[in-house]
């Protein structure tokens, strides 16, 4: 067979391998970052023991999880119990295939890109539902049922929020969406702020994270659908959860935050921002070196210094294309490298917001969550789509200037939001009172 026929598959397969290989590591480090962020918000230090500043903690955790006994409850449905985490992980990872990490780094630019991501990631529910069912435990099952209901509900509003941005982009291809934002010179977060908000809320709910972590609400359902899982299978669920976080953050970055574009990509004055990565890396390196003498053990000192050096190397890699002369190979690599940096930066920022919310808010109750989803987010997302459609029609068909047309659309959406909130407030106390009376009667 002709090798040339296989050539188009080479890079995608390579990328895919890289993602599958690196993602667990990334997920592990997201967990570490989350613990560190949490610790910082809670006046603690977080993991500090394994490696300097706990930098090797994820690896230790991974080793522990791999070596742990894989307990399968006696009365569980073995086959389903085995397979369920795999479904979750596969679905989460497949969704990454269509995401553009920079202009060059993408497994497949499908012309149904966004739909593909949505559709595939929605299959992850099966992993949760089946895992919860197969565990043969009430906690697991309740977690699974909650999860299914929650994901189906919030997928609706997430999908509608995405539709808003898609209307603006006029394409489903992820690459095309970023390109559209580049062409219009505005990130869609500014053209459809309400849509972004809806997506933010819905994506938190879809990834089962606090304050919407009903399915695994640890204080109610122990660990929800994962209650009976342990060791590697549990790790797979965890991996799926964090991969999902990356996926939703990537979607948000692509759709609303300009994908791989630098802020103000079209303005020359802000070319200074090309040095932002350099500064960031230098700052991290500086911090590492400042902390180096304080490490207790020699090995840790070396490690810390090495992390600093690594940051310097990264800084060099990022900065060289900027200062390289035009037309050189290095300069040609700039969009790819910087695109990847900005994309990951945005994804990171989005995930940081997730963490921030998690450590700030209490948990919703399940009925409140459903009420929020169906009575507020879904109508609002429909209003959002209509607002954007009205704005676009005014702009494209009636020839209004873009800014007032879109502003009108946003204003309409905000009006709808205000109406929904006022209606919700009118109804909410009644429901609470009803429950209260019931409790008093009993």
């Amino acid at each position, binding site marked *: 067979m002709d090798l040339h026929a296989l050539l188009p598959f080479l890079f995608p397969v390579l990328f895919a391998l890289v993602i599958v290989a690196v993602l667990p590591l990334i997920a592990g480090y997201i967990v570490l970052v989350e613990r560190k962020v*949490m610790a910082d*918000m*809670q*006046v*603690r230090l977080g993991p500090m023991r394994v490696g300097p500043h706990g930098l090797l903690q994820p690896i230790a955790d991974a080793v522990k999880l791999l070596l742990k006994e894989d307990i399968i*409850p*006696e*009365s*569980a*449905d073995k086959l*389903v119990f085995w397979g369920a985490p795999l479904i979750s992980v596969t679905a989460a990872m497949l969704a990454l295939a269509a995401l553009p990490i920079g202009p060059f780094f993408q497994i497949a630019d499908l012309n149904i890109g966004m739909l593909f991501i949505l559709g595939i990631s929605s299959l992850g529910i099966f992993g949760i539902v089946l895992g919860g*069912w*197969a565990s*043969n*435990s*009430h*906690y697991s*099952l*309740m977690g699974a049922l909650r999860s299914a209901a929650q994901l189906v509900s919030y997928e609706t509003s997430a999908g509608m929020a995405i539709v808003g941005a898609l209307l603006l982009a006029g394409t489903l291809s992820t690459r095309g969406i970023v390109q559209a934002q580049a062409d219009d010179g505005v990130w869609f977060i500014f053209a459809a702020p309400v849509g972004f908000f809806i997506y933010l809320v819905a994506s938190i709910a879809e990834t089962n994270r*606090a*304050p919407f*972590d009903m399915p695994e*609400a*640890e*204080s*109610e*359902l*122990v660990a929800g659908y994962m209650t009976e899982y342990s060791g590697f299978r549990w790790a797979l669920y965890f991996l799926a959860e964090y991969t999902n976080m990356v996926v939703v953050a990537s979607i948000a970055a692509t759709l609303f935050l300009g994908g791989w574009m630098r802020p103000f990509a079209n303005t020359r004055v802000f070319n200074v921002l090309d040095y932002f990565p350099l500064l960031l890396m230098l700052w991290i390196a500086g911090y590492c070196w400042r902390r180096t003498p304080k490490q207790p053990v020699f090995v840790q000192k070396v490690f810390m210094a090495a992390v600093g050096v690594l940051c310097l190397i990264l800084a060099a890699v990022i900065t060289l294309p900027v200062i390289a002369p035009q037309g050189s190979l290095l300069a040609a690599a700039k969009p790819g490298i910087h695109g990847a940096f900005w994309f990951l930066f945005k994804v990171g920022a989005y995930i940081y917001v997730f963490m921030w919310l*998690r*450590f*700030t*808010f*209490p*948990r*919703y*109750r*399940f*009925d*409140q969550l459903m009420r929020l989803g169906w009575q507020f987010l879904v109508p609002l997302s429909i209003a959002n789509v209509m607002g954007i459609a009205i704005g676009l029609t005014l702009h494209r068909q009636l020839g209004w200037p873009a800014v007032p047309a879109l502003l009108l659309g946003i204003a309409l959406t905000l009006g709808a939001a205000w109406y929904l909130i006022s209606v919700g407030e009118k109804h*909410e106390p009644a429901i*609470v*009172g009803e*429950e*209260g009376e*019931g*409790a*008093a*009667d*009993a």
Partner: protein
Amino acid sequence: MSDAFDNFLPGGKANVETTVLGADEIILNMGPQHPSTHGVLRVKLRLDGEKVVGSECVIGYLHRGVEKIAEHRSYQQFAPYVDRMDYVAAVSNGLGYCEAVEKLMGVEAPPRARVIRTILTELQRIASHLFWLGTHALDIGALTPLFYCLREREEILKIFEKYCGARLTTHAFRIGGLQYEAYDELEKDTERFCRGFDKRVDEYEALLTENRIWVGRTKGIGILNAADAIAMGVTGPVLRASGVQWDIRKAMPYAAYDQYEFSIPTGKNGDTYDRYLVRLEEMRQSRKICLQAIENIPSGPILGKVGKVLKPPPGEVYHAIEAPKGELGYYIVSDGTTQPYRVRIRPPSLVNLEALDQMIRGHLVADVVAVIGTLDIVLGEVDR
């Protein structure tokens, strides 16, 4: 029972005769190993979907027979045991016991001892409420307040440590007065803590009080009206949140409470939110008491006239104090020997927990967690 539900799970016992339609009612076993039952409480919930239609508490996992132990110890020997009941508020337990025995003996602690007792007990109340707030918020899903609360609690525990060398089970008092003389900086430490504490409470309030989710999770949940509260015998903040302005510190003052000015916060609706507000306000009031108390600690002996061997004259006494959780009573019967004939401890947690069933009916599983948290039970005390 839960047959319908069990059968359909993969390993459930198949039973053809069962013709129950759907999973109408299931039994959910919450605990004894569960993250938010605050120890080894086991609640058997009857659920309709996620709605609670009935419940039964199974307790006793931590039963140590404290009351039986008491019958085989001398009066002083038994004092450390009471610290281990409500281990989150050991000082209060000790105060109740010491005062009960003092009453039984007909002696009184000297004024200096009483004031220091009051200071430590109020600090303990703050510590207990802080711990409650942290865990309660954690149950409802707010992770962060716990650590802020523990940060402040730590300061209190440090004061305890400086005073008596122990942090948790302090055994700080002695029958007839104090075990130890106050250390030199007790006033200063207490004052420093109290001065900064008001702002800390504001901080917690900033995180929770106005938070929509918090309000949604606590308002109208676990309502106990005043009549029910009295009938169920609940005491402490739970009773006050139901609108009954009753606090043993005011109603039947002990220690040095009659010298200080403080108010008794009450709630209106008797729901979880009110209990939260009441406890927060109680912390502020306790801080106020501490500040008043350190201003003027009388000098003098710290131990009243009690012999080495305690032989209370025969008879019996019931003495109750306002522990952080409610009325903590000691009913001690003496037969004139060195060992109590019978010690009955009236644990506020146990009686408050009894109201759980009534409070959670009609609510959802998530609310059960909130209500268990709001009752502020310590299983060491429930089970004794």
